[in-house]
């Protein structure tokens, strides 16, 4: 039995076929504007390269950095309405207060604060005001906005107001999609609200992208289940991702780090993954991505997801280079259009890859147009690129230990042989490490419900939840022996009688077979 791992980056779509722990083949194809034809190309390539029968493929795992890139580059984000239910509390820090100006502008920066929200003990801060919400909905409609993020104070403990407000506003916004913060994040209103707003701004892109994946698989007669990877290295169903694209954030780095560790056998290392659009730097600790212990910035916006500690910069093989004074590299990238826009392919845009090719570091396309800039200019640009990579790596390095740097990703030709004194390893299949990471994605089982601690102890409740989650994971195809606890959290609901507590618990295991 075989499985396919695919990674859709901003520039390349990579695919691998794995049989157990063996990588049979890895291929790269350009990502296309419609996403689908690039996925089809890489699937065709990878399947024809081995002669494996489509019917023997048991699962396809897709990792995509599409949504992270959209946020980092501030592109393809829908104008979003942020509505916070809180008044009179929380006015001093309005929604998006700590966002960089450019991303605030990219999502429109529209927000409203309305009556509502709960106290910690379940009382209402103020009751929902239907007229006020209808008026807000009318204003949102008048602006032509069709995606709304709703965030109510204490909604992780009581989500009634977010649901009720969505129902009211749908009367005036029948075609809008609503993202409820309680479905995405935990306590910490600013971070949860940020995630909800980003999710809302990505829903249109998500519907388009996920739909394209499904069609791509059907086109080439792959009828096995397909999954999309989440930021903790586990797999999500397609329908789930359409509603919660934000949960794919940082799945790229998780996949590339897990892939890099798998490919090199290194358990402690810095991993630099240079794609076409962005570079992610992370750290492996004992074989797993080092988790961020505090809140994590995505494109300069603070969130409270459980995510790998990753520092991302807008530097990739397709980064647009400005060879004037001052020299600039990125943040805009030609992305998958490098094959038409890059100088080396006959286009008219100078990219980071052109610089590498012009200096003879890499041998792809035509180096001549880049050489016209002159050696001094090319070296100056390369020095800036090196400096960006070294600075990003330094941020992730937390000790003086001589750990290796694992260079992966299609753009890793940009990484020098030595990064701030650390030696660089480029493993076999380095350019498809992400796809390998996706292919080894794990199956999870999750429980999120309220337990009464009137007749059982907290430990017994946790044990019950762990058993339920394990059963779910096994039912979803996880190998029973490989199951381990990934995350557990209990939030006591002080306002409910009977000592109620909300337990969220997640176990993971390897895909059976």
């Amino acid at each position, binding site marked *: 039995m075989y499985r396919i791992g695919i990674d859709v980056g901003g520039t390349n779509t990579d695919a691998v076929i794995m049989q157990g722990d063996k990588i049979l083949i890895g291929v790269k194809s350009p990502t296309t504007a419609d996403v689908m034809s690039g996925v089809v190309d890489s699937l065709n390539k990878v399947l024809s390269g081995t002669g494996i029968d489509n019917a023997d493929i048991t699962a396809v795992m897709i990792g995509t950095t599409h949504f992270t890139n959209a946020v980092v580059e501030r592109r393809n984000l829908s104008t979003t309405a942020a509505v916070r239910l809180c008044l009179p509390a929380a006015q001093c820090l309005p929604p998006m207060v700590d966002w960089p100006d450019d991303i605030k502008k990219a999502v429109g920066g529209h927000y409203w604060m309305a009556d509502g*929200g709960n106290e910690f003990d379940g009382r209402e801060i103020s009751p929902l005001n239907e007229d006020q919400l209808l008026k807000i909905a009318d204003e949102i409609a008048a602006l032509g906005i069709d995606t709304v993020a709703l965030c109510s104070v204490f909604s992780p403990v009581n989500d009634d107001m977010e649901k009720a407000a969505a129902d009211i506003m749908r009367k005036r916004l029948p075609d809008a999609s609503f993202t409820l913060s309680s479905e995405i994040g935990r306590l*910490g209103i600013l971070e949860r609200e940020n995630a909800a707003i980003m999710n809302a701004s990505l829903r249109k892109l998500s519907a388009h992208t996920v739909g394209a994946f499904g069609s791509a698989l059907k086109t080439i007669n792959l009828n096995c289940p397909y999954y999309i990877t989440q930021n903790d290295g586990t797999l999500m169903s397609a329908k789930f991702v359409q509603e919660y694209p934000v949960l794919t954030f940082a799945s790229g780095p998780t996949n590339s780090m897990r892939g890099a560790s798998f490919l090199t056998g290194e358990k402690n290392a810095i991993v630099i993954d240079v794609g076409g659009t962005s570079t992610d730097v992370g750290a492996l600790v004992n074989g797993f991505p080092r988790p961020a*212990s505090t809140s994590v910035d995505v494109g300069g916006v603070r969130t409270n997801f459980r995510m790998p500690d990753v520092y991302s910069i807008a530097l990739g093989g397709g980064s647009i280079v400005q060879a004037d004074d001052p020299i600039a590299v990125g943040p805009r990238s030609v992305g998958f259009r490098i094959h038409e826009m890059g100088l080396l392919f006959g286009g008219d845009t100078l990219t980071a890859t052109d610089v590498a090719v012009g200096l003879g570091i890499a041998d792809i396309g035509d180096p001549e147009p880049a050489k016209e800039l002159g050696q001094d200019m090319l070296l100056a640009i390369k020095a800036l690129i090196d400096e960006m990579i070294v600075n990003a790596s*330094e941020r992730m390095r937390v000790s003086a230990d001589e750990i290796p740097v694992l260079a992966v990703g299609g753009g890793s030709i940009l990484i020098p042989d030595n990064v701030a004194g650390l030696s660089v390893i480029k493993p076999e299949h380095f350019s498809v490490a992400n796809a390998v990471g996706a292919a080894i994605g794990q199956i999870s089982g999750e429980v999120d419900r309220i337990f009464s601690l009137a007749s059982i102890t907290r430990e017994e409740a946790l044990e019950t939840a762990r058993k339920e989650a394990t059963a779910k994971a096994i039912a979803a195809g996880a190998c029973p022996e490989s199951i381990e606890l990934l995350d557990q959290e209990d939030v006591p609901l002080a306002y409910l009688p009977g000592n109620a507590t909300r337990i969220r618990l997640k176990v993971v295991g390897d895909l059976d077979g």
Partner: protein
Amino acid sequence: MISMAKLREVLDSDLDAVAIGAAILGTGGGGNPYIGMLRCREQLRKGRKIDVIPIDELSDDSLVVSLGGIGAPVVGIEKIEQGEECLRAMRALETDLDCKIDALISSEIGGSNAMEPMLTAAQAGIPVVDGDGMGRAFPEMQMCTWSIYGHVSAPSAMADEKGNIVILKSTRNEVWVETLARANVVAMGAAAGIAMAPMRGSYVKKFAVQSTVTQALSLGNAVLEAQRKNTDPIAAVLAHEDGRLLMTGKIVDLERHLKGGFAVGHITVAGFGDFEGDAGRIDIQNEFLVFRRNDKVEVCVPDLIVVLDVDTGLPITTEVLRYGQRIAVLALPCDDLLRTPEALAVVGPASFGYEDITFTPMPKSEANDDS
């Protein structure tokens, strides 16, 4: 200690460091300073200033008010304030006493209440004093040095986000200020601003913990600099504070619940590195109170128990504790004002329900014996 120019003003560029330093001194509690930092920044962006006055420059007869937010830390990151709770409480006090307040001081430098007096001072156009009443965070107001040494906090004024104002006109003793304020704040939704009866400058000079705004700023700068230079941030904090590394480890269990507006619980830590095989346990009552290694008490309140992210050196407060976090547990010595018998009667372990624990000042770090 390197002598440096006295702090006169907190600038936008200082806010990150002050927030980190305040969270370290918060020993897990005091509320997350991030929110307060943003609120200070909003004030500065409106063109207001945060002026700082060194304690020794206070005139003896000036009126200094300690004020801050009161509530539960979990509430603080979820139900953010309306914004002028403390200012309303301060104005209510001025009206009630027919006086003009000259400067504000933080009751606790640890956590969000380092920030609240700064942003209120900016709103009111008066300076904030470089010092505080704890040199750390404590869950209750009578645990301030000035309360311990005789200041009467009533009348105190409380204001919530809804426009309610309550004045505690007179109380039997300092504990009653806390008891009544606490009952009130639960009714107010576990978040309110409170301003205490003014103190004279001469009193503040004697009984405040000195220069703690400066301390928070330089602690935060030490962590940020270690991150910039890739040196060990844990070592930077220890060197800075004459502290001791208790343990490095991973959180393997976490229990935390709200009890009357307080976060109560404990974490269990499995040691790694030099501490492989050690089982650590930290008790929480809003702050980290007691550290035990293999069931034996090693450090307890009022000395500071600090939990930092082992890699970044950033402080981890009780509300963001998570299963699986890799942490460093540090002990830092408290101010001498908190180690006297009068102080220990109020802030010693027995005050937190640990009748069986006797406070022993934490041993000085061997590494810093020469200093």
